[in-house]
């Protein structure tokens, strides 16, 4: 099993969720985060002073999947999140040795879906 972490642009969230649905990946956990990457940060004005911040609002999506779903999931994420501009984000794929469904105490591949 893999634990996939994607950081995307906030305004692509809707589209990404739709693409995931299309790939029949329905389970996910979404968090609001601040990101700092290659994208130029935002400029804010405070009482006449121009400030260049470097933390931008981003969305983090976490998805635990069985191996055979990894590629479809990555493709769905890319399809939904990609605009071709700097700031589109990253996908990190970690190994997930174990998983438990709290309700049923099922473990492993059974629990993940």
């Amino acid at each position, binding site marked *: 099993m893999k634990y996939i972490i994607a950081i995307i642009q906030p*305004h692509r969230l*809707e589209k990404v969720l739709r693409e995931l649905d299309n790939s029949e990946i329905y389970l996910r956990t979404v968090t*609001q985060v*601040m990101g700092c990457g290659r994208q130029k940060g*935002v*400029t*804010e*004005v405070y009482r006449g002073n*121009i400030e260049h911040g470097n933390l931008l*609002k981003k969305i983090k999506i976490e998805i635990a999947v069985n191996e055979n779903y990894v590629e479809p999931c990555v493709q769905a994420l890319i399809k939904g999140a990609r605009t071709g501009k700097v700031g589109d984000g990253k996908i990190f794929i970690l190994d997930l040795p174990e998983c438990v469904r709290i309700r049923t105490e099922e473990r492993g591949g059974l629990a993940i879906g």
Partner: protein
Amino acid sequence: MNRKILWLALGLIFFWAVPAGADTGGAVSPADTAWLLVSTALVMLMTPGLALFYGGMLRRKNVLGTIMQSFFILCLIGIEWVLWGYYMSFGPDQGGVVGDLVRLGTSLAGLEPRGTVPGFAFIMFQGMFAIITVALISGAVAERMKFSAFFIFSLIWSTLVYNLLCHWVWGGGWLMQLGFLDFAGGAVVHISSGVSALVAAILIGKRKGYPEKVVRPHNLTMTVLGTALLWFGWFGFNAGSAIVSGGLASLAFANTFLSAAAAGLIWVFIDWARTGKPTVLGICSGAIAGLAGVTPAAGFVSPNSAIIIGMIAAIICYYGVSILKPRLGYDDTLDVFGIHGLSGTWGVFAVGLFASKSANSAGADGLFFGNPGQLLIQIVGIAATWILAGVVTYGVLKILDAVMKLRVSEEEEDIGLDLTQHSESAYTILE
């Protein structure tokens, strides 16, 4: 840079154009003045109230954009009003169409009292109406209109629509001469802004993702607070429109409250019956619909009529917002047309039904009190307002779009107006 020159020029004009000197008219009544000044302060508070009412319903990234429009209008139209708005509206009538045009740029030795109130109190009270009318429109184009375009639009719209209409209805113009009744601005304020909002929403186009993506209010408590401030301020709006303190102001006050309460209740009950839940946004929307609906009628009808006007206003607006809008498919972001346009139209019409000389002997009787003629006059007024507001808004926006584009770029819409138009965020996330 051009802007700097502009306001320097404006600055010089101010010096001449603005009335000087306090009123010394012997007829001034301290009690009426106190009432009018308080009412003016209350109406002033409505514009920030509106900013919060609107802001709460938007996404976090667009809150400041809409709040800024209201606040900017408060300043801009406030100054426009004393420069030329007031004279166009309330100056000596020119053929029923407009007041004093030449007054722009010449100095007034002093404002005479209007009846029992000082001229400065009257000009300020009326100015607050000019302000909120423009601010209302901002709700229809929220989340996508460029600030610069809204700025220029407001100035032209206020001059060409508001000032004319205000003159027609309250300043001695042809509708007033005809006997058209609009106590506190059903046509002047609510129809004009509502219809213009509809035209603007259609011209500017839908927001990205509308209607698939539903934008949920980012902070309903802000909308609740805005509703409270609007309701509170509306007592000044309607009861202050009696100008003097006493029985008429009290009648208008009671009518205002009762219509809002009845409309709030009805909206909740419809919501409950249709969706299974009574909603907070529903009661707020209903109350505003009731307030807008009773505005033209507040000083002309009895409280029982006011309650009925409020109830019907809620039904009409509920229909407009929940059924008509989705069906027609335009994207009037915050339902300015669905609430103010429809309710204002209904209210002005309702004056032709419910007006009664027993409520206000200076008013008229409506259809239900034996005078069908009044209803006809009201319909003429409605038509005139719809046409003036619709046509001018259409023309002005078309030209502005050609000259400077009305809408932000797609990318700016994605990022949000707060950052792209104002380089600010409403809220920090981390601290």
